[in-house]
């Protein structure tokens, strides 16, 4: 099996030849990994720096895929303020991470006539061709997209604002979900046309202690819109992985009913992988669970190998598991530990004939 067959077989619930190894890196972690492996960086002036570095590391480490970042997450720096293309404004943290402080929608009237789709152009899908050229047809292209819930709270200037709207301004919540879902459906179509093989939808809706909002609000404000996006992706034969941090137990059956193929990242602090495998492992491909909060940052390479071996033993039997960190590779992840994670995945992830 090649990487593409391996990943798509897993996402569709089958058992491939070995556990696929996929990952979501940020730029800092890519540069750290490249430095550890002695790979020169193309330099910050390269428009496709992140994509080229990711492809280089896929080949160097023998990964099946690095998941491509959401093309709409590109921000413009304007002095001390960072802006996205939809009018939300961010400041920069000491780690260079943008954090939202203002959005363009304050009230229902601000959504009248609002259409996010004209802000997207074919240039946004150009990195897909760059990735294809670098990796060839045997590796899958999997792309992150940001779910309506998060896009909505960005438009509102903060998650707190949108969650308050859930309780007090249902029309505004639906109006935002409509506008953002229209964008998402067009992004799914654009991604399919550009050759993307699978989508991962970033939809954090839970903390470690449990959901941010009730299952009733999920069914009212979230589920119908996810169904539209997933239906659009199914129509183009692209599986969709749902990404939701935290304790997602109250929503798991809904995630399956909506038609998602995979579930990520299965945070080990609040979701026991054995219980997840037992409960939904025959209906969802599980993607993740290797702790990037502590283990990959401060653990030893031996500890990483042991955890990967144990996780594969629990999650991989029968197929439907892909090795991935419990969120993403970030600046605090030790490159040696990630390399140990990949090597352990390659060592312990082979299915018997």
């Amino acid at each position, binding site marked *: 099996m090649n990487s593409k067959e391996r990943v798509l077989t897993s996402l569709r619930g089958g058992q491939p030849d070995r556990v696929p190894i996929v990952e979501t890196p940020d730029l800092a972690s890519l540069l750290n990994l490249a430095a550890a492996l002695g790979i020169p960086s193309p330099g910050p002036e390269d428009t496709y720096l992140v994509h080229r570095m990711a492809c280089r590391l896929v080949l160097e480490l023998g990964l099946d895929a690095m998941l491509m970042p959401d093309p709409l997450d590109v921000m413009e720096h304007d002095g001390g303020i960072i802006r996205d293309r939809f009018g939300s404004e961010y400041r920069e*943290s*000491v780690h260079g991470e943008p*954090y939202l402080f203002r959005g363009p929608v304050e009230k229902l009237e601000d959504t009248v006539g609002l259409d996010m789709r004209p802000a997207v152009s074919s240039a946004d899908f150009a990195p897909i061709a760059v990735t294809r050229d670098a990796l060839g047809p045997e590796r899958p292209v999997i792309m992150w997209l940001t779910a309506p819930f998060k896009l909505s709270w960005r438009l509102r200037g903060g998650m*707190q604002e949108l*969650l308050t709207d859930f*309780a007090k301004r249902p029309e505004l919540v639906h109006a935002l979900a409509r506008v953002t879902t229209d964008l998402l459906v067009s992004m799914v179509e654009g991604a399919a046309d550009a050759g993307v093989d699978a989508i991962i939808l970033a939809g954090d809706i839970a903390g470690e*202690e*449990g959901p*941010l909002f*009730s299952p009733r609000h999920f069914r009212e404000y979230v589920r119908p819109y996810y169904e539209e996006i997933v239906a659009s992706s199914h129509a183009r034969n692209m599986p969709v992985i749902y990404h939701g941090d935290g304790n997602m137990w109250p929503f798991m059956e809904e995630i399956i009913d909506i038609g998602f193929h995979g579930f990520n990242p299965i945070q080990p602090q609040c979701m026991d992988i054995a219980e997840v495998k037992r409960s939904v492992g025959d209906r969802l491909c599980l993607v993740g669970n290797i702790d990037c909060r502590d283990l990959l940052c401060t653990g030893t390479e031996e500890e990483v190998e042991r955890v990967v071996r144990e996780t594969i033993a629990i999650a991989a039997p029968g197929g439907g598991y892909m090795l991935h960190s419990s969120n993403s590779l970030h600046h605090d992840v030790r490159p040696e530990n990630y390399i140990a994670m990949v090597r352990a995945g390659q060592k312990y992830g082979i299915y018997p004939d």
Partner: protein
Amino acid sequence: MARDAGVLREIAAAVEAGDDEALPALVQEALGQGMPAASVLDDGLVAGMESLGRQFGAGEVFLPEVLAAADALNAAVSVLGPHLVAEGNPARGKVVIGTVAGDVHSIGKNLVALLLRGNGYEVTDLGVDVSVEEFVAAVADERPQVLAMSALLSSTTAQFAAVTEALEIAGLRRQVRVLVGGAPVRQEFATRAGADGFAANCVAAVAEATRLMAETEDE
């Protein structure tokens, strides 16, 4: 007009329902009946919030309901505030709050700030990504009884110890109680960081801040 404890129950229920339209009028009604402002605060507003807090802790309600209630509570406290002062109630204390450097998570911290204000405390919110120096300067300038710090990333919880050490060096540590919280934070971590208190969620943070305030009053 006769005093009617029923209005206090209505106030508590309006807080729980997040009804910011009805609440100011109910507060006015209670004051019009001659109820002491402190009683309206404690037996009406705070009682309602505590009830909602218990439901939140039990997973029966979620952030939207708590945020709506906190909004309503703050609307009511702005009506009640002048009456509390006019009736000679001493200020309940001051809290400086912020999310530590390198961490941009705001919602838990904001909710704690809202609830503290709703409980009658004066709150200075320094925002997110707050440096050690900014925390120390705020403690020096504002002289709060409690400094509350939030972190959602395990990598940034190291900032708690950096702040407590800097407060020590600046000679300010003994004049303020330090409260820490956030998803990765546990009691033993708080103790190691030299903090005085720890809270696992926003409702617990208010109770812990109140406990720490009481400690400072005992001194």
